[in-house]
Every structure is written in structure tokens, then in C-alpha cells.
């Protein structure tokens, strides 16, 4: 397997099973954090026995992941409830909490939450009180940089459970060009049974699109895009399409959302709103190539392409002068 096309195909069309490179498929899926999703998509399909056992174990493990993710959310809820501020779950944990199709087999790393910016200090204090601690001994520069410009607190880790929490106040760094409207996201958020909240459907998709492009170098992109495919299919309706288009414009993320739709359609065959997605561009091909740059040994391929996207990720997060200064200070500190 030269690239991850087989993985994409297996997710998109599990019925098309053939004499597949199973070891390659499993290694690529593991490398892309998609083994759980793949295992559920392939449930009940006629795969070789060893592969069936791998998938069964992956499904079991995904169940444990779900339990642990929801538990982290619950412990955060207990710590923050007395503050009376809206606590909005994001990413994988949100999918699990709301039982979305995107949660099926979804791996979860850290707990991501969003809270109103003015409440950040209180939220941080409450979490520290409840057993979370700062992760690394951040240098003076990194910590103050972080707090001033990033969209989140420096990460916290729970001292006994050893799990991380990322507290966001908006979805993109303040240095990035699009300025999403965090207050609008909070206002439109939806309350769950236990009092925690999630973003409204359109904002969930918009966040996923922003996260896919503007927040990085497309590493883990196949999984993010799979999220987007699952979300779009579940939410699709005329009302949703209208909301998505309106809110994408509101959050200044229309181009990112449009590209996310085009790539999801291109790779996973997602039905999309043509008027929002627009037509395929040449750049889409580069994005696709970057997304599938993983071979059957689980290695990342296409180094130059990846480096170009890595630079792009930094560029998007930081205006040029700041980037130069940041890289210079990092180089001086030997980081």
C-alpha cells in the first residue's frame, strides 16, 4: 500500500471488501487513529479470522475509550458546576456525550472544553483545586505567549488519573486571521441532560473544519475528515444547510468549511451543499495527496508536501513577524 487510499475506501465502502492488504490496512488505520472507526464499519464483514479478532478487540477498546472520555467530562462537570458558567464539550468527547454517529469507534485523547473568556481564571482555579496540575514547567516565554495569544489555557493534567484537559475560550488562536465569534458559539450551544453543553450542529462542523485546516498541518486529517463526513450525513437537512452556510460566514470560516465539504465529498463521497462547497480546485488535489500520505507500513510519506503543510499551519496561526520571533526564541532556547 503506497498510500492510504485503501483505508479511505474501506471506511467509505466496507461492502467492497476484496483481497485486501490487511496488514497494511490495519497499520495505516492505527497510524491515522482510525482503527476503532474502521473496526465498526467492518463489523460482520467476511474478513480473515485474525483480522476479525483485531477488529473485535478494537471495538472493545473503543468502548473503554468512550467510558473514559465521558468520565473525564463528568469529573470536569463536578469541578466546574459550582461556578455556574457554560461548559461546552468539544471534539471527540462531545460526539460521545451526544451519541453522534461520529462517535462510533472514535478515539479520544484529551478532554477539550470551551468556556467564556472572562471565566478562564475561575475555571483554571477550580480545576487546580480539583486535582488538575499544569503540564510542563513552561518557560516564561511560552507560558505568557500561550495565555496571551492562544485560544486555550496551557494544558492541565489530572494528578491521579493522568488525563489531560484543554480549556478553550475560542476555537482558533487569536493570532490567526479568521476570527470566529466565540460568544455566538456559546449562545447557540445545546444543553445535555447532565448540564454540560455541546456546540450547535453547524458550529460542530465549522469547528471540525477549522481544526482540520487552520489549526495544524493536516496531521490526523483523515480522521478529522471522517468526523466531518459522519457529522454532515447525520445533520443533513435544508435547515442545517442554511445554518451551516450562515454560521460559516459569521465565523469567517466559509473557505475552510467549503474546502472541508469538497474534500469530504472527494474522499468519502459525502453528499454536500454545492452552493457552499463550490467546485473542486487544483489545491484540493494537494490537500488530498497530503491527507492520504501514509503507506501500508504506517509511515508518513511525501516529506516535502508534509513540510509545506507544516509551514502553512504555522503561517496561518501566526502573522509572519510573530512567527519569525517565535522561531528565533525557540531556536535560542534550544527547543
Amino acid at each position, binding site marked *: 500500500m503506497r498510500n492510504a487510499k485503501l483505508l479511505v475506501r474501506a471506511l467509505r465502502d466496507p461492502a467492497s471488501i476484496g483481497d485486501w492488504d490487511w496488514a497494511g490496512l490495519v497499520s495505516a488505520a492505527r497510524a491515522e487513529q482510525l482503527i476503532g472507526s474502521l473496526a465498526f464499519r467492518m463489523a460482520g464483514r467476511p474478513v*480473515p479470522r485474525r483480522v476479525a479478532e483485531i477488529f473485535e478487540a478494537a471495538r472493545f477498546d473503543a468502548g473503554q475509550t468512550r467510558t473514559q472520555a465521558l468520565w473525564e467530562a463528568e469529573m470536569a462537570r463536578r469541578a466546574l458546576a459550582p461556578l455556574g458558567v457554560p461548559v461546552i464539550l468539544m471534539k471527540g468527547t462531545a460526539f460521545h456525550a451526544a451519541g453522534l454517529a461520529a462517535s462510533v469507534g472514535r478515539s479520544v485523547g484529551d478532554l477539550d472544553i470551551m468556556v467564556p473568556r472572562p471565566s478562564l481564571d475561575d475555571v483554571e482555579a477550580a480545576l487546580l483545586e480539583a486535582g488538575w496540575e499544569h503540564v510542563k514547567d513552561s518557560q516564561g516565554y511560552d507560558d505568557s505567549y500561550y495565555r496571551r495569544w492562544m485560544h486555550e489555557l496551557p494544558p492541565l493534567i489530572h494528578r491521579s488519573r493522568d488525563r489531560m484537559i484543554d480549556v478553550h475560550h475560542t476555537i482558533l488562536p487569536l493570532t490567526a486571521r479568521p476570527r470566529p465569534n466565540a460568544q455566538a458559539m456559546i449562545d447557540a450551544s445545546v444543553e445535555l441532560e447532565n448540564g454540560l453543553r455541546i456546540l450547535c450542529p453547524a458550529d460542530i462542523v465549522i469547528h471540525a473544519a477549522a481544526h482540520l485546516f487552520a489549526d495544524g498541518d493536516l496531521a490526523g486529517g483523515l480522521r478529522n475528515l471522517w468526523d466531518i463526513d459522519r457529522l454532515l450525513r447525520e445533520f443533513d437537512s435544508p435547515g442545517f444547510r442554511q445554518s451551516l452556510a450562515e454560521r460559516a460566514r459569521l465565523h469567517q470560516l466559509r473557505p475552510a468549511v467549503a474546502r472541508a465539504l469538497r474534500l469530504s465529498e472527494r474522499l468519502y463521497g459525502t453528499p454536500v451543499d454545492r452552493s457552499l462547497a463550490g467546485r473542486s480546485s487544483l489545491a484540493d488535489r494537494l490537500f488530498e495527496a497530503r491527507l492520504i500520505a501514509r503507506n501500508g507500513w504506517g509511515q508518513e510519506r511525501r516529506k516535502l508536501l508534509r513540510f509545506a503543510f507544516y509551514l502553512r499551519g504555522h503561517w496561518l496561526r501566526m502573522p509572519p513577524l510573530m512567527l519569525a520571533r517565535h522561531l528565533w526564541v525557540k531556536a535560542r532556547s534550544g527547543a
Partner: protein
Amino acid sequence: MRHRLDIQIGPVAFRIGSAWKEPLDALARLYEPYPAPRDGLSDFTVRLEPEKPWRRFIRPSVAIKGDYVLPDAVPMALAHGLLAAEMGMNLQMALGQKRYLLLHASSAEKDGRAIIMTGESGAGKSTLAALLGERGWRLMGDEFALLDMDSGRLLPFPRAVSLKNGAIRVMEAEVEADRFGPRLEGTPKGDIRHMRPNGEALDRMGEGATPALILFPRFGEAQAIRAVGAAEVFMRLTQASTNYVNLGGRGFDALNRLIAANPALAIDYPDTDTAVGLVEDFWRELAA
């Protein structure tokens, strides 16, 4: 990847890729009598790669990669490539094994029943199991024991035994030379030599056993035996398992069934022969 070797160890099949020929040649020699995975498929993939492209040739250094990786792992010298391959396989088991409850323990079987031996590194569990394997027992594994959570059976993982420092001499005295790998000196863990389990252990690597005894051996002390209480056994076994915390209620139930059904002993011993004697004595009592 330039070079490839597939190995089956117990129920687990590994696909090992390498940028260099030497580590896989050494691995292939050590694992020569092991079966290749029957179905041509693998459970885990290990990769031995240069950290940077030029490190394939210039001061070659082997980064251990694969399906599951340790982000801060220090690369190893090419001369220790065989050790890197072993560590790569260990890593896949430690981080990626989700089907069986993984115990960091050695095990040996007689008459269909197995001893599980666990303790700190250097406490002697590997050497004790290896020696039992030469004294009428079947060696099931020196590093990992796999507990099937549904059946309660113990499954073998008879990889090549990793002997360190003093243990090398002990086994060299008992076992024919062609079952050993090269002596690796100056590794992060001292001197290491790998020893292949005997023919019986390999022939029967598909055969599990019913656990019958849990042992906590401690090498280098005056001879002593004591029974170990269930709570202590529970705590020590969960500490000895890398995947227990992710196995939920299934792991909890399986571990409790294991503990409820089997006696647990801590034995201290000045030398391995004494330990073997203690084990045989207790085993006879158990059978009676």
C-alpha cells in the same frame, strides 16, 4: 521497508520491517524454528528505522517504530539492532494488546497447569522460568503472560528469553550453544544474550494452560516462603499489567477469578536451583 521478517509467537503474529539487513538476519537466526504466521497476516507491525535519513549510514542509529510507539524513545546503535527488534515487539504488546489481559510475568506449565511468576525487573522471574523449562517443565514465556479473560486460560508467549548479566552464565551452563543469540554488550540494560526456548516450548506454543499457582520470586535473599494475601496479589498483579486499566469490568472479573482460584506464594532464594526445588516441593503438595 527494505527488509521484512514475519514471526509468530504464541497467538501473536508480528510483521517486522527494517531499513538494515543485519538486525533481521540476527532475528531470523534466533527465531529460525518458529513458524511463520499461517495466514500470512500479522497482529502488530514493528519498524526499525533511521531517526533521520542520513542516520541509515552515518553513525547508524535505530529508532524503534511501529503501530504503537513511545514518543521519547532513545534510538539504539545498529550493533544492538536485535535488541531493538525485541523491544519493538515488547512495545506493541505493552501498548497495543487489547484482547488478552497482559501480565508482565514469566510462566511455565506442567500437566496442563501453569505457574505465573511476577516481580520487579531483576527479581529473577525470567531466569527461574527458563530454568524450569530445562527441568521438565514447558516454558510458556519469560516476559509476558496472556490471560484469556473469558476462559481464564493462560496463553503462551514463548519469545526468545532475554537474559541479563549473571543469568547469562546460569543458562549457558545448561543449554546448548546453538540456542543462543549473540552476546550484546554495553546495552542500556547491561550485557544481554537471547536464548531460544527448547523444541517442546515452540512445538506447543499454540497450547494454553490452566493457571494453578501465582508466585512472587525474589532472587538474592536467604530462602523463605510466605503465603501472599489476596489484596496484595490483586495490587501486585494490576501493577504488573500494562493494559489492565483499559479492560474495564472484564479485566476486573478475570483477575478476581484468577486470584480466587489459585494460591499465591512469595519465595526468596539465594540461587535459582534452590528456587526450582522450592517450586517442585510446593507443586507436589498442590497435586496431593
